[in-house]
């Protein structure tokens, strides 16, 4: 499988496009800064959100039981899924039970994680993503490249072409208002004919059994209001204790995501409509294992705002698809190895460890630190190629002995001075692809010091 570095190289081949991608997301980051500045005590709010989440994670069993009890009392049907496969089957069973075949779905990263769409399609169900960005990438048969802005890698002209092909819009017309109206008309039909509406969940309130979904397009509501059966899909970590805790998160979420004070719609789903049915599917899929791991557990605090992606200088210049995992960017780089460390062993290294993600995170996840810890674990599990392991071992030995270090340094400087440029800048020297090596000085600092300190009467 291609590594992140290969895919990043590919992404950067079209440099103007990479610059556009970087600048687009940088503008989102700047909007976030402006919105965050407008909130007095932003940092305290982040800390409070982090503490609420920590508290929930420490008492998750009780809160989940409380949530289920309340939801059932409200008239909802609660299902539990241990993994992706069980989740997909639960959804399919609900659909089959209603003899339905037309499903609309608002944004849900959990369903992406579990591969729900391909599973349902294989089983003859038409599932339509109703979030505009999600619908675009569904047409293109692509994965989202960002968790909040799933089609951010595409330009409006490409969407114009796509809609011309799929929806019959005018050729060459890429006016955003025109295209959005076309999508709206197309989705309206889907909403009206849908038998079942799926949604994700941003929050699940334990004390009331309510599922809270935040959207900007109102598409979750459109689905839920049109279809008789509503199904809300949530990971076990979406719990918050009380309704009064919700404000902490709604103040942070949209501001940190895209610099908006709040999402246009914050929908509270509490009980089925008259004559309707409400299902809630609670999914583990590896989460409880992570909960039991002291180093990585607090990644479960993530509220999926995407702020770490917008701020990440690597993400902005390599695109979400370069990560090869459903959740890209810094948070994806610490979540992915939890699911399959061998497959995703490149991701914790797809970072300069600049620390911006940890500072931006609205729930204070120590992302940078977890990237560092994953690197240690990947090395300890011997997942590096043998040569790299050997080099690291030798370097560890050489750097621990002053005399070997001095000698190696001298030899390296000598080599750089006398070897022909063609050898020094061989393709294997990745530093040299786009950079010169430093000019070699005649002596090291240590050599200079030995000569000069004696003149001054001898330092140690």
């Amino acid at each position: 499988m291609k590594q992140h570095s290969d895919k990043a190289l590919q992404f950067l081949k079209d440099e103007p496009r990479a610059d556009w991608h970087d600048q687009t997301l940088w503008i989102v980051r700047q909007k976030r800064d402006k919105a965050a500045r407008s909130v007095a005590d932003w940092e305290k709010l982040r800390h409070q959100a982090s503490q609420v989440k920590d508290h929930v994670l420490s008492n998750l069993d009780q809160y989940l039981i409380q949530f289920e009890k309340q939801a059932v009392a409200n008239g909802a049907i609660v299902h539990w899924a241990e993994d992706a496969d069980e989740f997909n089957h639960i959804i399919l069973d609900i659909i089959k039970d209603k003899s339905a075949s037309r499903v609309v779905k608002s944004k849900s990263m959990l369903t992406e994680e579990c591969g729900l769409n391909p599973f349902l399609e294989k089983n003859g169900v038409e599932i339509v993503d109703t979030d505009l960005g999600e619908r675009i990438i569904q047409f293109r048969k692509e994965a989202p490249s960002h968790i909040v802005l799933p089609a951010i890698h595409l330009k409006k002209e490409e969407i114009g072409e796509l809609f011309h092909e799929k929806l019959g819009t005018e050729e060459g017309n890429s006016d955003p208002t025109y295209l959005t109206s076309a999508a709206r008309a197309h989705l309206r039909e889907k909403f009206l004919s849908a038998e079942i509406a799926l949604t994700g969940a941003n929050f699940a309130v334990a004390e009331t059994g309510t599922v809270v979904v935040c959207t900007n397009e109102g598409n979750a509501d459109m689905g839920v209001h049109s279809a008789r059966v509503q199904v809300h899909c949530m990971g076990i970590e979406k719990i918050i204790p009380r309704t009064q805790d919700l404000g902490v998160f709604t103040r942070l979420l949209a501001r940190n995501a895209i610099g908006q004070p709040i999402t246009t719609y914050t929908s509270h789903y509490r009980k089925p409509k008259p004559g309707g049915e409400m299902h809630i599917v609670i999914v583990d899929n590896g989460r409880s294992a992570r909960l039991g791991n002291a180093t990585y557990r607090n990644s479960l605090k993530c509220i999926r705002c995407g702020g770490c992606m917008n701020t990440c200088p690597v993400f902005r210049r390599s695109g979400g698809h370069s990560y090869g995992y459903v959740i890209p960017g810094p948070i994806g780089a610490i979540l992915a190895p939890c699911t399959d460390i061998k497959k995703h062993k490149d991701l914790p290294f797809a970072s300069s460890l600049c620390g911006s993600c940890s500072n931006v995170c609205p729930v204070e996840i120590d992302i940078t630190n977890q990237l560092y810890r994953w690197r240690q674990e990947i090395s300890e599990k011997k997942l590096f190629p043998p040569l790299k392991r050997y080099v690291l071992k030798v370097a560890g030995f050489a750097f621990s002995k002053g005399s070997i270090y001095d000698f190696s340094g001298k030899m390296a400087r000598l080599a750089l001075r006398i070897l022909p440029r063609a050898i020094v800048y061989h393709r294997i020297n990745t530093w040299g692809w786009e950079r010169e090596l430093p000019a070699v000085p005649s002596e090291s600092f240590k050599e200079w010091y030995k000569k000069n300190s004696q003149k001054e009467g001898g330092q140690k």
Partner: protein
Amino acid sequence: MKKYRIGLFIPCYIDQFYPKVGVATLELLKKLGQEVCYPLKQTCCGQPLANTGAEKEAIPVYQNFVNNFSEFDYVVTPSGSCAYHVKEHFDILKQTPEVKKVRQNTYELCEFIVDVLKVDDLKIEYPHKVGIHQSCHGLRGLKLGKSSELMTESYNKVRGLLEKANGIELIKLDREDECCGFGGTFSIFEPAISAKMGKERVHDHLRNGAEIITATDMSCLMHMEGIIRRKNENIKVVHIAEILNSNRL
């Protein structure tokens, strides 16, 4: 000013490739009245290994560092990244009194001048247009300044020292604290992204009229200098120790 016994730590890449930065650091600390010793058996802080995942292999390197530096009042180094590594990541050693002392007393040069020596004006003459590249580990790790992500009160120890210089013009960058993309072995294993980030960092300085890029870390500057020299850009890199040492003290 109080006189301390200082162990000077010169990071491996500065020792090998930029001895003049080591010399400037040494001279500056002496001008500030400090007793400076440079232990000859020193090598590296171990960060290149640890950031690559080989923290265990770095333990003897850490131990060598502690053996060389535990006798001093302070360990001072012209690198925010190395200082941060010692403070943050020597936690895997057995926390003996020596280890604790070294972790607690290791300082990046500017931080040492401002926080320990309490000097804020070094009487510098530096009539140039300078852009400050805020190295990430100094900024977000050691908190030498407020990073742009945080909504807290603004401060900046490095800028504080530079803005007092006579004749200096500190230029404003479009992105005040974006990473340069060096990232240690990141520069080798992710060469395309690393170089792209470096290019943009250099361009930000060029676009805004800087003659000189300075930083607390020569590693960031080495990376950007590599790009500047390859592209023959009309801008220079100068480590902050060299600027601070060009003074009238």
